[in-house]
């Protein structure tokens, strides 16, 4: 098959799966998950074929796979949509396909496929377990299958469609369509257990918060379209267009390109949960764990960073290569600030998934900061390695929670939160596969030197920041990296090491193969993917393996970015912060028995710097007040109802006035009755001449004839 045709087809199987499940197979759990996983596998195979073919093309950056059709007539020209796979697209497609496929597979196990239906399970709530009797007559409580199993796979399919659409798009509009489809799906999936009020709130919060960013992004798209007349990437990223945009002044001392890039970036701030729109992502943990992995690794948040990487030529259009532009400064600041800010919060969280959520925010901040200082390849590299190890960590945490839920079902004590790390401990013996893969993921996140992917990508960002002299960014990111290693080791220590702290942890159990297989596959990539991007200047190891990633993805841009010169300072820094953070994390938490011994339960951090409260006070309550007093009481009750209430009597008055003073006297009386009366009167007068005598008629005719003839003669002919 033609490669371009194949690219067109990649997003379609998950969409088809969505419709098939929704319309036909939702009653059959087996059929639904077969269709969904099969569709994910098809897209995966297609993506891999495209990726392999992309590897075989020389100068893919100049001659990418692209194909477009006329879509919307706009005046004399057409708005064209199409697909594009350039080196960046191929690299992103690679990790997206793998993670999506793994998450689909994992969901089968996570939702307890093959287990009996629950005793009291209802739709909209997590399954509570089922009682079974074995052959000896003993009763056991075992995990029960998710009541809305098919629906989950339908949503996942739609979500995957959105992500694939976003990745293969060759223009901002279809990218935005995929972006919004994911927004909808994230709302549906976070609120999947809609019976829980917290899940409902989290779904609304995620949707509303990302919407704030999306509005600005749409503004940016509209601005870009009005300025250039096109939204196709390869038409925008030409020398002339970028130069024209960069030399057009816009507001606030920014150029048009800078302002557009900033508006698009605000969309990313919402989607990738950067400060100050980060608040939705930790709450999104209310969704089932595969959803967390889907949103936090493979799809939505990566999509935000991907969009900035995609628009990188626009972001740097007016950059001279040394001093950062206004927009880039803002991007770098928000990224670096978010990286540090979220890392500090993560230290004080006890929910295993919330730690990872803040860690995600922090790591995304890393990538954004890298883009802000112009480190294009490093950002893309970290995006991909992060996607692998963060998906691994989320799926690992889901596996842990699943194992803990098993323990909870065993003891029957439902007051034990299976997500609280202080209820765990010592799980390494109960769940060895989960432990080892989680350890790999955690070390990759911390940047454990040399072996893990996270080290290479994080080191490259730090080296870039240092090499180009952005010391503030460098220091901020270094501290964030230290905190990352610290809270990661805290998490691993509390969860897996030591002795079980609760009865439930003692009875935790390893999860089925559908859950552990994705963990192993992702762990493989979390280690090896770093080796494709080892800088050539790295001592000893540099040059052993060619720096494939830099060569490949770097050629997406017209000018291949230079890798920074090697320096010992960033390397030593990343070694020290990673190892130091890990060691300190282990030493601090190895003997902690309960939450009261945790020295980092600082209220400020525990409460996430009171951002939720602040937003509640600043935006939500004023919005409620506005809705109640202005919109409801004033506008609706006062103005609109007042107008309506005035309008009714007014029309009634006008109507009766018209009836009394116009319709009755004029129409009815004068015209209606009057015409009849006049006719009657004339009839009465004229009927006298109707005598029935022929000779009188003739006489009358003669007289009339003479009179008319005389009149004609005198007034017409003689005149």
């Amino acid at each position, binding site marked *: 098959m033609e490669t371009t045709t194949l690219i067109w087809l990649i997003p379609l199987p998950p969409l088809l799966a969505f419709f098939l499940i929704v319309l036909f197979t939702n009653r059959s759990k087996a059929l639904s998950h077969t269709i969904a996983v099969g569709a994910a596998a098809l897209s995966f195979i297609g993506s891999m074929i495209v990726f392999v073919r992309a590897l075989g093309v020389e100068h893919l950056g100049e001659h990418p796979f692209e194909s477009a059709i006329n879509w919307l007539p706009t005046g004399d020209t057409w708005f064209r949509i199409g697909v594009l796979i350039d080196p960046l697209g191929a690299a992103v497609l690679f990790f997206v396909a793998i993670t999506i496929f793994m998450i689909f597979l994992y969901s089968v196990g996570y939702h307890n496929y093959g287990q009996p239906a629950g005793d009291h399970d209802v739709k909209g709530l997590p399954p509570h377990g089922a009682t079974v009797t074995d052959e000896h007559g003993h009763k056991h409580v075992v995990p029960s299958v998710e009541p809305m199993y098919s629906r989950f796979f339908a949503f996942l399919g739609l979500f995957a469609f959105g992500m694939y659409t976003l990745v293969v798009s060759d223009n901002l509009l279809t990218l935005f369509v995929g972006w919004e489809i994911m927004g909808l799906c994230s709302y549906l999936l976070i609120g999947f257990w809609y019976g829980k009020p917290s899940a409902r709130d989290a779904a609304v919060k995620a949707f509303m918060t990302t919407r704030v960013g999306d509005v600005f992004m749409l503004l940016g798209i509209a601005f870009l379209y009005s300025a250039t007349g096109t939204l196709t990437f390869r038409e925008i990223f030409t020398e002339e267009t970028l130069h024209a945009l960069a030399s057009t002044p816009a507001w606030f001392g920014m150029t048009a390109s800078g302002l557009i890039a900033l508006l698009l970036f605000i969309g990313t701030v919402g989607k990738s949960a950067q400060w100050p729109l980060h608040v939705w992502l930790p709450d999104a943990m209310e969704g089932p764990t595969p959803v967390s992995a889907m949103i936090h690794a493979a799809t939505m948040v990566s999509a935000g960073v991907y969009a900035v990487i995609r628009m990188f030529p626009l972001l740097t259009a007016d950059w001279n290569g040394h001093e950062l532009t206004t927009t880039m400064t803002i991007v770098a600041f928000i990224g670096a600030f978010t990286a540090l800010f979220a890392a500090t919060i993560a230290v004080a969280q006890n929910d295993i998934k919330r730690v990872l959520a803040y860690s995600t925010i922090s790591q995304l901040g890393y990538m954004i900061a890298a883009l802000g200082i112009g480190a294009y390849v490093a950002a893309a590299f970290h995006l991909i390695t992060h996607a692998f190890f963060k998906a691994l960590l989320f799926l690992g945490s889901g596996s842990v929670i699943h194992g803990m839920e098993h323990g909870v079902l065993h003891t029957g004590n439902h007051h034990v939160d299976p997500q609280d790390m202080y209820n765990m401990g010592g799980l390494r013996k109960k769940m060895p596969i989960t432990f080892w893969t989680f350890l790999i993921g955690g070390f990759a996140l911390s940047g454990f030197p040399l072996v893990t992917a996270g080290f290479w990508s994080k080191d490259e960002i730090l080296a870039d920041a240092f090499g180009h002299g952005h010391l503030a960014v460098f220091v901020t990111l270094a501290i964030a990296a230290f905190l990352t290693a610290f809270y990661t080791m805290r998490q691993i220590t509390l969860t897996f090491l030591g002795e079980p702290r609760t009865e439930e942890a003692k009875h935790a159990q390893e999860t089925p193969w559908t859950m552990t297989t994705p963990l192993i596959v992702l762990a493989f990539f979390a280690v090896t993917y770093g080796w494709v991007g080892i800088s050539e200047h790295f001592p000893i190891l540099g040059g052993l393996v060619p720096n494939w990633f830099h060569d490949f993805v770097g050629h997406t841009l017209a000018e291949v970015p230079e890798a920074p010169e090697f320096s010992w300072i960033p390397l030593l820094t990343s070694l020290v912060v990673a190892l130091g953070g890990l060691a300190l994390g282990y030493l601090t938490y190895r003997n902690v028995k309960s939450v009261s011994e945790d020295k980092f339960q600082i209220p400020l951090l525990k409460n996430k710097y009171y951002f939720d409260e602040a937003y509640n006070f600043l935006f939500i309550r004023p919005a409620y007040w506005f809705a109640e007093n202005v919109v409801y009481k004033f506008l609706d009750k006062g103005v609109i109802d007042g107008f309506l209430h005035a309008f009714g009597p007014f029309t009634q008055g006008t109507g009766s006035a018209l009836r009394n003073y116009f319709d009755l006297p004029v129409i009815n009386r004068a015209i209606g009755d009057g015409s009849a009366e006049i006719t009657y009167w004339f009839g009465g007068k004229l009927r006298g001449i109707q005598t*029935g005598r022929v*000779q009188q008629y003739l006489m009358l005719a003669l007289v009339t004839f003479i009179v008319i003839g005389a009149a004609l003669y005198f007034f017409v002919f003689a005149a």
Partner: protein
Amino acid sequence: MVPLSWYLIFAAALFSIGMFGVLSRRNAVAILLGIELMLNSVNINLAAFWRYGDVHLMAGQVFAIIVFAVAAAEVAVGLALVISVYRSRRTVVADEIDMMKW
């Protein structure tokens, strides 16, 4: 040759006599006679104008013949009506035949 005006004056006189008969006579049969006089005065006009105009154009004579035919038919119908009215109302006085009033 006699001038055309003589014929016209004669026809006008005949028409006037006929019209006077129609308007003044009480007998319905006499009214019909008056109508015949008026029709024949028209025929005189038609014949006179033919003779004094282009004799090769026969329209005047043809028209006169049509008028004869119509007059004959009219008399036939008119007399039949008069007889029919006489049978039902025992009168032929026009003023007394006034059923067609309001």
